[in-house]
């Protein structure tokens, strides 16, 4: 699929589509339409998730899912307000996302609901609860 086909495929689930070039596009969706979009991607034959990025932008944490639609890169943004940092897991549809979701949970404190193995991935076991290193308000490791 090239960028046009991908944007055609996701247009009813996502808005704000920005086609960067023939093999890369950005789009924004929300939690309500997210699951339906995943299924649509899956039906269209997308199997590869490259990674998940989380960005703290003030009151909102943006979660970006990078899907590889052979060869187009679909970068799907889901903005999550900080008072409701929850997102359903995608591991049932894309099992390769297991580690990325654990990473997202411990680094930005996004609660991934229904994750099969929600342990820490990189942080040490004695890292305090509720301290997330990639948040804006983070000021150094706790003593």
């Amino acid at each position, binding site marked *: 699929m090239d960028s046009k086909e991908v944007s055609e495929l996701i247009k009813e689930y996502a808005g704000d589509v920005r086609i960067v070039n023939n093999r890369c596009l950005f789009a924004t969706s929300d939690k309500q339409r997210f699951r339906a979009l995943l299924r649509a991607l899956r039906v269209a034959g997308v199997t590869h998730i490259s990674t998940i990025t989380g960005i703290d932008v003030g009151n909102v944490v943006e979660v970006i899912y*990078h899907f590889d639609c052979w060869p187009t890169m679909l970068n799907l943004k889901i903005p999550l307000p900080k008072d409701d940092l929850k997102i359903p897991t995608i591991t049932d549809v894309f099992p*390769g996302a297991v580690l990325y979701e654990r990473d997202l949970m411990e680094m930005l404190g996004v609660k991934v609901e229904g994750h099969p193995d929600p342990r820490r991935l*990189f*942080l*040490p076991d004695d890292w305090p609860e509720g301290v997330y*290193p990639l948040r804006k308000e983070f000021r150094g490791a706790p003593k």
Partner: protein
Amino acid sequence: MTFVVPVGPQHPMLKEPEFFRFEVKGEEIVGVDIRLGYAHRGIEEALSRRSYKHNVYLCERICGICNVVHSTTYCQTVEQLAGVEPPERAKYIRAILMELERIHSHLLWLGVAAHQIGFNTLFMLAWRDREYVMDLRELISGGRVHSAMNTIGGVRRDVRSEHVPTMLRGLDKLEQSARYYTDLWGSDRTILARCTNVGVLSKDDAIKFCAVGPLARASDVKVDIRKDDPYGAYGALSFNVITEQEGDVWAKGMVRLREILESIKIVRQALKELPSGPVRTPVELKIPPNETVERTEAPRGELIYYIRSNGTDTPERVRVRTPTYGNFASMKSMFAGGTVAEIPIVMWSIDPCFGCNDRITLVDSHTGKARVVSFDELRRWKK
């Protein structure tokens, strides 16, 4: 009766610290658990606190083995953000360096793989021949491992025309030895006994767990970013994507060895068709708010950089997804049903690079913690 074989954080099998916990019944593996994070340096956060120019050097130090591909991907991403195009000659020089890096990474893999199955002679010989590549890299860039060639908008040094014949001679020697090792890998009885039908990753699992690079290609998944999403000079260079059917350790080795031959071909072609002109475009490094993603084919697979700019000379956020991180999810299915004797070679067959993998957190996890884990478990085994 099952007991636990700890592999790591320090173990002769691992070249870098990481902890793997194998539950073993006799010789058979029944469970595996991975504990990451022993080599954290907090690079993602550090990248968002330094200027774009500084970050070139920091990205180069994410991984020692694949430093060129890291800095190239970073530079490409920033160039795309800033809307500049590097000169053609710079793209070719980058391609030459990246392919030399692939050759040296794969030869390094071969040496360590031979060591993992106890074939120390092959280990020493493979690393001896790896010196040819190091010499070529030194010739171009002045550095055997860290080339420090890339800069935003091009490369810092040119390939001099009097170096080209030396390069070609070096490539001939390299090709000879690569062919020899390819033959050896396909014919030596003990290598075949240890590597065939071991650590098999089926095609379905490779797709399901999003395997990348040689790991996926050995399971007959034809992915190669150089072909799928050509970047730099790769659109103009001709080469084949190597795949194997079996998905076992042997196939993973064969893919890498045959890729060495392809890379030699690419370097030869790039040297022949090297366009003339400048090697650097000046760039204004105050980038308006924007975001972009770039991916390249590192020696170990797909490497992704995501950068968001915010109008200043430092990036807002840099996300790095290294190939080893992408390949860890496949690991469990490769170990299922294996034996203790297979742990080292199967582990090494994904060519793990923990330095790459662990770059994310902010503080390095204290080694003291790791020791507590191990000792507790040691005490339990005694009982």
